[in-house]
């Protein structure tokens, strides 16, 4: 994975919605699912990486997928070029590490 690639994040309530969002995100654009975090009290997030445009499309689609199921996302963001120190945080949530 190239470093400093754009980052897309979605946070919502419960694993049912976040799985749907993650699926929609990865199908919508050329992004890789790189992270997952069960924050606490039902707050769950996923992180995807790819080009800025791909991340934007992925996040938009993810938000829509959750809304179509009748729920709403708590927050979502696209970071076009993450600061290098953010890599340390992202590494904590990497799926490779969690498995």
């Amino acid at each position, binding site marked *: 994975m190239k470093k400093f690639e754009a980052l897309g994040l979605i946070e919502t309530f419960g694993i049912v919605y976040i799985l749907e969002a993650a699926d929609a995100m990865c199908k919508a654009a050329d992004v890789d699912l790189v992270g997952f975090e069960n924050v606490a009290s039902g707050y769950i*997030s996923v992180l995807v990486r790819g080009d800025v445009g791909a991340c934007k499309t992925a996040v938009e689609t993810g938000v829509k997928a959750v809304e179509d199921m009748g729920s709403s996302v708590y*927050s979502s963001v696209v970071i076009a070029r993450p600061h290098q120190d953010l890599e340390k945080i992202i590494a904590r949530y990497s799926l490779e590490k969690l498995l």
Partner: protein
Amino acid sequence: MRYHGEEALGLVETVGMVPALEAADKMLKAANVELVSYENVGSTLVTIMVKGDVGAVKAAVEAGAAAAAAIGKLTAHNVMPRPIRDIGDIVSIYDIDK
């Protein structure tokens, strides 16, 4: 990064990790500060801590707090100009590099 106290510490706390990550990115880019820790403290609260000169930390916290509030819920933000050394030890329990 190990934090020993006696240097300005900036804190931003949000509900959820998405605003926290956005805040961390904006803080690190806004001024010459270094990431000390990023911690999920529980009950959905996530805290970012940075260190540096007082002025830089103030600017970073302002930018981070604004960024977090724009996309999510900000619960607290603070600048500690010169915490005692023992505070540094507590903060370093959550050291990002550990």
